[in-house]
């Protein structure tokens, strides 16, 4: 395979982005978010704790309904009713995001500290305004910068995402999907946030454009030292951009640690199954692995380990006792038998 010939090695170019300072930018502790629906309380996110260091990229993966998007909404304190953060805190730069009200979050956190690119974000550009008009809005609102000054700042960011500054005066329909996505990324970076959350940033894009956007995000991370959280169900993408991985199941962290370790040697049965169900480009297989059953109803999550009804290795203890996240082989795993299974 010609991959290694033409992919450049960043280390050899002296662009080592992880050896920077290892200060913690974002600390999430016991975050619990529930939706209070008529059917009952949905435990969408249950006791989630993790840290994000400066310049680090964390990937969050899992099946639909595992709480990955709820995690993103919780981090920017924008859980829609009937949902609410019921417990835990989110520390960024001395601020506890979870304790702020809407007004405070908007003034202090969103776009300034944490920016977010949501699923289908490129469709949020209004067709009736120019790109520049929409792009400069956060500048106007947060810094009171307008007109030529705003244009100058925006152009600088447009260039950083490899777009021509003339795009500033164009309308969204004149741009391709990849260009729109890059405009959104540029806008998200305008106020110099510490953390960028990207929820399925490339789902609606083609593979070629997807690879370009991922390259761009890597470049931005290297240049600005911004930390990123990628949320997607496509584990292959995560493997290529994130050095840390958080596998979630039914609102809980199943396994979290360095993606190298997790990909090469998963310790949680769910991670193992999830990785095996991905079709391989360069390997012939007779049958794809699948996880039997469906994700549980989070109004009444299964007792003990939430994965036990679908787990091939499940035993009595799994039904009775909730497994704690514990250190196994250089990562944290929530499984009673992690490390013992082969």
């Amino acid at each position: 395979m010609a991959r290694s010939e033409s992919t450049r090695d960043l280390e050899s170019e002296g662009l080592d982005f992880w050896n920077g300072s290892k200060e913690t930018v974002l600390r999430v502790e016991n975050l619990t978010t529930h939706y209070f629906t008529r059917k009952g309380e949905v435990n969408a996110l249950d006791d989630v704790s993790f840290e994000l260091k400066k310049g680090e990229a964390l990937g969050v993966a899992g099946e639909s309904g595992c709480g990955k998007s709820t995690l993103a909404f919780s981090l920017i304190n924008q859980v829609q009713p009937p949902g609410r953060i019921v417990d835990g805190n989110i520390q960024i730069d001395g601020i506890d995001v979870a304790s702020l009200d809407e007004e405070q979050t908007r003034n202090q956190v969103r776009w300034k500290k944490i920016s977010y690119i949501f699923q289908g974000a490129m469709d949020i550009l209004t067709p009736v305004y120019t790109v520049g008009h929409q792009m400069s809005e956060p500048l106007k609102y947060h810094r009171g910068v307008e007109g030529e000054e705003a244009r100058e700042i925006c152009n600088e960011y447009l260039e950083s995402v490899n777009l021509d500054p003339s795009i500033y005066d164009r309308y969204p329909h004149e741009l391709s999907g990849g260009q729109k996505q890059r405009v959104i990324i540029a806008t998200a970076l305008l106020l110099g946030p510490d953390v960028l959350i990207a929820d399925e940033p490339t789902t609606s894009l083609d593979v070629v454009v997807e690879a370009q956007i991922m390259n761009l995000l890597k470049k931005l991370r290297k240049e600005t030292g911004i930390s990123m959280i990628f949320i997607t169900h496509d584990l292959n993408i995560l493997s290529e951009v994130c050095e840390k991985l958080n596998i979630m199941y039914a609102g809980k962290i199943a396994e979290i640690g360095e993606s190298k370790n997790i990909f090469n040697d998963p310790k949680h049965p769910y991670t193992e199954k999830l990785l095996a169900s991905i079709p391989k480009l360069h390997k012939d297989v007779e049958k794809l692995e699948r996880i039997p059953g469906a994700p549980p109803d989070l109004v009444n999550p299964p007792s003990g380990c939430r994965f036990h009804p679908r787990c091939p290795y499940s035993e009595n203890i799994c039904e009775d006792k909730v497994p704690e996240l514990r250190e196994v082989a250089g990562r944290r795993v929530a499984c009673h038998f992690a490390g013992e299974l082969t």
Partner: protein
Amino acid sequence: MAKTILKAENLKKHYYIEQGIVDKILRRDKKKVRAVDGVNFDIERNKSMAVVGESGCGKTTLGKVVMRILEPTGGKMIMDGTDIADIGGGDELKAYRRKTQMIYQDPFSSIDPRFTVFDALEEPLLIHNSGKDIEDRKKMIKEALKDVKLTPPEKFIDRYPHMLSGGQKQRVSVARALMLDPSFIVADEPTSMLDVSVRAEILNLLKDLMNEHDLSFLYITHDISTSRFFSDYIAVMYLGKFVEKGKVGTVLDDPLHPYSKALLKAVPEPKPELVNEFKELPLKGEVPDATNLPSGCRFHPRCPYSEEICEEKKPQLREVDNREVACHIC
């Protein structure tokens, strides 16, 4: 020698773009989009051919032309000795549609929300006068539900689509395609809306059904890694033409056409050791305007290896290293 079930020769579909009044008065030529432009392929019995490419390359149009949902602009499609491209509407087309079925991308919208599973599966039987009476049809529907592993069928037969999960819905659309016992199925991105583990389930199911029912598939997808599992042959499409075609393993492991190379390189793979690297794609610029195609090789403006000849002469598919490639240079 495997039996060819469908043979397409020089198949074309061009769309004409509506003109404005000024263009009409000035009698300008109508612009056209060559969505499918001279495509040849054979699909053998009990084999599957994948068509991959970026959006706008014409793969969905190709699927629709093969189904005769769209009239081809030119070319031939031969199945059982008849040229499908040539037949009129009415009975001949109906007979063809009995033998070929389609599975759509989005199970959430391809099943009528007001139809129960029974209604959805009965419809093709009614249209084609299959089954003696309602009891007979019910029996056939239960069989089909068993085939797609929706068991016990009694549990699912009276449900509405909203009572089913995404994977179950897609199983119902697979069952619907099987109702008339077709020999050939066009599957247009059947798993792109589904979760990873559900995707694996549906692909396993389709592969089992392919062998049990002796089916042939035209598998249209942008998810190239699934084609390795599901298909025997693969065709890489760029702006309405096949640029490379061959056995799935041969093409995916060692692509020769510069476009296939770039496309395959872009496909993410579970390689955490790449986290420190930029993926450099051997590809320039963006997909050109489909109404105004580049001269010569359509890929030449984006191709890093392009030479003078590429601009002047259209490359034809030719045999190189056990596969067909349309490139002057490789």
